[in-house]
C-alpha cells in the first residue's frame, strides 16, 4: 500500500437536529438525538487534534449546525486551532446578531443550501413553511457582514427546471462560488429515488446549462458541478479516494471515512473520545479497508482508471450491488451497469412517488 498522507478536510456533523426535513438528506436513516451529541470542549479538542494531524479545512455541518447553541464557540475554537472554517447551513437558526458574532469569532466562509428558487418549491422540499423567506433574509445579512458565500443548489427531478434561476440567484446574492449538486443517492435520498431521480433529458440539460453559465460567468462566479450519478458512465472519485483526503465526525463522535460509511455493515468505527484522531486516521480498520487498490476486484483491479476514480463509491456499491468492494455500478464496466441505468429510467418515470421526509427518531422510552 502506498504511504498514507495526512487528511486535508474534515466534515464535522455537529448535530443531526435540523428544522428542515429534506428528503435527500445525506444523514443516516438512524439519526442521533441531542442528548448524545458531543459537547463544546470535546469538539474543541477534536479541532486541535485535526489541525495537528494536517487538516486545513473544517466544514461545520449537520443537520443544521445553527441548531447548536454553542456554534459561535465552536467556530472560535476551530479558528484558534488554526483551521479554515466553513459553515454549511440552510440559514434557519441564524440571525443578524448571530452572524455578526460568527464574524467576530473568525468564520471564514458560508455555504448556503438552496432547496428551490421560489417559496412554494423550496418549502415543500424542505418540509418547512417560511424557510425560503427566512433563507433570503439570511442571504442578505451574509452579504452585509461580507462573508464569502457559496450557494449550494441541490437539484433533482422536482426542481432541475429551476437551475437557470438558481444561477441568477447566486449572482444576486453576491456569491463567488456555486455548487450545482444533483442529488446523490445516499442516506434519506435512497428512500426517495423514485421521487427525486432526474430524467435523462433533465440530466443532459443541466450539464448544458452549467457549461454555458461557466463560460458566460468566467471570473465572476465559479460553478462546481455534481452531475446526476445514475445517468453517467464513469463513477465519481468518491471522497477524493477513501482515506486519502477527508474524514467525517458524527454528532456522537464516530470517525468515518465518508458520511455514508455506516451503511457498510462489516466496518467498525472508532470513537474520537476513545482513541486519538491520528491513530484512527492512520491505523483505524475502517480507514484502511478501502485505501489504495489491493482490495479491488475485477474489472477495477486491471482497469487503467483504478487510481483515477478508485472504482467509484464504496457505499453505492454496497447499496446497489450488496458488496462494498464491487465496482460502483455507475461505471460502464460494471456487470450491473445496464440494470442501474434501466432502474434510473424507471424511477424517473414514477411521477406519483411521494416524498419521504427525514425525521428524528421518537424519544427513547416514549411511544
Amino acid at each position, binding site marked *: 500500500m502506498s504511504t498514507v498522507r495526512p487528511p486535508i478536510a474534515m466534515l464535522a456533523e455537529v448535530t443531526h437536529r435540523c428544522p428542515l426535513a429534506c428528503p435527500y438528506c445525506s444523514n443516516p436513516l438512524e439519526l442521533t438525538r441531542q442528548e448524545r451529541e458531543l459537547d463544546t470542549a470535546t469538539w474543541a479538542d477534536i479541532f486541535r487534534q485535526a489541525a495537528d494531524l494536517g487538516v486545513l479545512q473544517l466544514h461545520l455541518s449537520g443537520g443544521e449546525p445553527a441548531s447548536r447553541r454553542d456554534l459561535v464557540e465552536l467556530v472560535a475554537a476551530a479558528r484558534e486551532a488554526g483551521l479554515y472554517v466553513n459553515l454549511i447551513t440552510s440559514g434557519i437558526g441564524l440571525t443578524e446578531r448571530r452572524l455578526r458574532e460568527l464574524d467576530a469569532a473568525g468564520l471564514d466562509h458560508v455555504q448556503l443550501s438552496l432547496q428551490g428558487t421560489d417559496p412554494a418549491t423550496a418549502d415543500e422540499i424542505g418540509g418547512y413553511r417560511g424557510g425560503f423567506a427566512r433563507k433570503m433574509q439570511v442571504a442578505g445579512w451574509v452579504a452585509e457582514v461580507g462573508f464569502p458565500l457559496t450557494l449550494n443548489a441541490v437539484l433533482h427531478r422536482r426542481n432541475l427546471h429551476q437551475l437557470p434561476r438558481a444561477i441568477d440567484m447566486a449572482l444576486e446574492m453576491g456569491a463567488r*462560488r456555486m455548487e450545482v449538486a444533483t442529488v446523490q443517492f445516499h442516506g434519506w435520498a435512497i428512500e426517495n429515488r423514485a421521487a427525486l431521480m432526474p430524467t435523462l433529458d433533465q440530466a443532459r440539460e443541466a450539464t448544458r446549462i452549467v457549461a454555458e453559465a461557466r463560460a458566460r460567468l468566467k471570473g465572476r462566479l465559479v460553478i462546481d458541478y455534481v452531475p446526476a450519478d445514475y445517468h453517467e458512465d464513469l463513477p465519481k472519485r468518491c471522497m477524493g479516494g477513501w482515506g486519502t483526503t477527508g474524514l467525517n465526525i458524527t454528532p456522537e463522535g464516530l470517525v468515518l471515512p465518508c458520511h455514508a460509511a455506516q451503511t457498510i455493515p462489516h466496518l467498525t468505527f472508532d470513537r474520537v473520545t476513545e482513541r486519538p484522531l491520528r491513530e484512527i486516521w492512520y491505523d483505524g480498520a475502517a480507514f484502511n479497508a478501502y485505501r489504495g487498490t489491493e482490495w479491488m476486484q475485477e474489472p477495477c483491479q486491471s482497469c487503467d482508471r483504478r487510481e483515477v476514480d478508485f472504482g467509484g463509491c464504496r457505499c453505492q456499491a454496497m447499496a446497489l450491488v450488496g458488496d462494498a468492494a464491487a465496482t460502483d455500478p455507475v461505471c460502464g464496466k460494471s456487470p450491473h451497469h445496464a440494470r442501474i441505468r434501466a432502474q434510473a429510467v424507471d424511477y424517473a418515470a414514477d411521477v406519483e412517488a411521494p416524498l419521504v421526509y427525514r425525521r428524528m427518531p421518537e424519544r427513547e422510552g416514549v411511544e
Partner: protein
Amino acid sequence: MTPEDIPTLPRGVRLHFDRVREAWVLLAPERAITLDATGHAILSEVDGARSFGEITQTLAERYNTPPEQIATDSAGFLDALRARRFLDVRP
C-alpha cells in the same frame, strides 16, 4: 495581469503556513493550494494597495531578478487564481 492592475486577496482567501506539511498554502473556500516560492513571494506582497508592477519591482530588487521574469513566471498561476475568484484585481 498588467503592471497597472492592483491585485487583492478577497475575504475568505488567506495565506497559511501548513506546519504539518511544512509549506505555505493559500486557503480559500473548499480549496487549499500549495504555494511554490514564487507564488508565496508574490501573494505575501499583495496588499490591495500596490500595483502588480510595484510588487514585481519590489521582488526584482529583493531577489535580483528582472521584474518581467517574475511577471512571466507567475502569469499562469495568477490567472488560475483569478479564474477561481481566489484573487481579485482592481484596475
